[in-house]
């Protein structure tokens, strides 16, 4: 299980981004995981609940967008969805295909809280945040 190592890589990036933006905490982290990326969404989720402990990501939520395998046939140009271990053209049966999608391992976006500028314009609203982290 290498998902813990992947998770630590992810969180290092997220924390760097939080510091760069002067944020107080991270609310949501959205990642895109392809079926051929070598990362299991369930295991990543479990690793995340352990790895997130720390200043910025203590209360963060992980959103995983999974992406299926899609291929384009080099022989006939047809595009179709495919199983991760059966990358064959559904039109001509060819096996020389290019992967169009499915190997993604992307940090898509981060929802940051308590960025100074935003905080200044919304001072009255701040008291309610149970999940804000100071």
């Amino acid at each position, binding site marked *: 299980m290498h998902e813990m190592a992947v998770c630590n890589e992810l969180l*290092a*990036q997220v924390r760097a981004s939080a510091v760069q933006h002067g944020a107080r905490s991270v609310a949501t982290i959205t990642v895109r995981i392809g079926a051929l990326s070598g990362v299991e969404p369930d295991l990543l989720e479990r690793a995340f609940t352990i790895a997130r402990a720390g200043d910025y990501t203590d209360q963060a939520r992980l959103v995983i967008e999974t992406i299926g395998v899609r291929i384009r046939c080099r022989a006939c140009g047809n595009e179709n969805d495919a199983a991760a271990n059966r990358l064959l053209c559904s039109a001509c049966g060819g096996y*020389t295909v290019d992967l169009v999608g499915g190997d993604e391992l992307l940090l898509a*976006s981060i929802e940051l809280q308590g960025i100074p500028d935003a905080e200044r314009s919304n001072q009255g609203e701040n008291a309610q*945040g149970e999940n804000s982290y100071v």
Partner: protein
Amino acid sequence: MCETCGCSIPGHEHPEPADTHTVEVLKGLMSSNDHAAAHNREHFDRSGVLVVNLMSSPGAGKTRLLEQTAAGLGGRLNIAVIEGDLETENDAERLRRGGIRAHQITTGSACHLDAHLIHRALHEFPLADEQGAVDILFIENVGNLVCPAAFDLGQHLNVVLLSTTEGDDKPAKYPVMFRAADLVVVSKCGLLPMLDDFSVDRARASLAGLGNETPVIQTAAGRQPDITDWIAWLEARRAEHPATAEERAPATQTA
């Protein structure tokens, strides 16, 4: 149950705090490893060394193949090995007994090598010795067909071993690993006459189902070794690899 605070009061909501701000990133999730891998690759290219990442399940014969590789090359190329194992110095010692320069990384409980571990090893393991610069550096990854595939180390080529004592449908079971391969080596082929459940053709078909045309070669590295195709493949890859960064530069300028 409320997903935010975990309490069981029905119908209450936690409004989105007004000071949230979404930042689009769209960057590789492994950027710290990938950065270290790029750094390693630069170092390899400056030294003109070809780096081959050897992966397989445990016991497929990676170390044995490397022992025979030194003999098969007959001194024509200078090779060195970085070994990855959870524990013990055994594999590196085995290779050293055969006269091969080897450095052992023990990962503890980690199931794969990553670019940071290789970077650290390179500080202790120079890419030149009394016989001159290393021509091919092998990285023998931790025996595992899952995790090593996700970590770029800075290598130039991935070689995956599939031994005849495993199932010939391994490519279909471990598509991520076998898709990453630049070459698949069917190892322990000396055993084929004794086995009734492994077909090299079925292994090829299983690999073809992954949608790429990865070459497949066969090796026997046991008592009656035959690794001719493997040695030929290595020498061909070495021959087409730029010896130094300087040699590489004019090629990129004319492109």
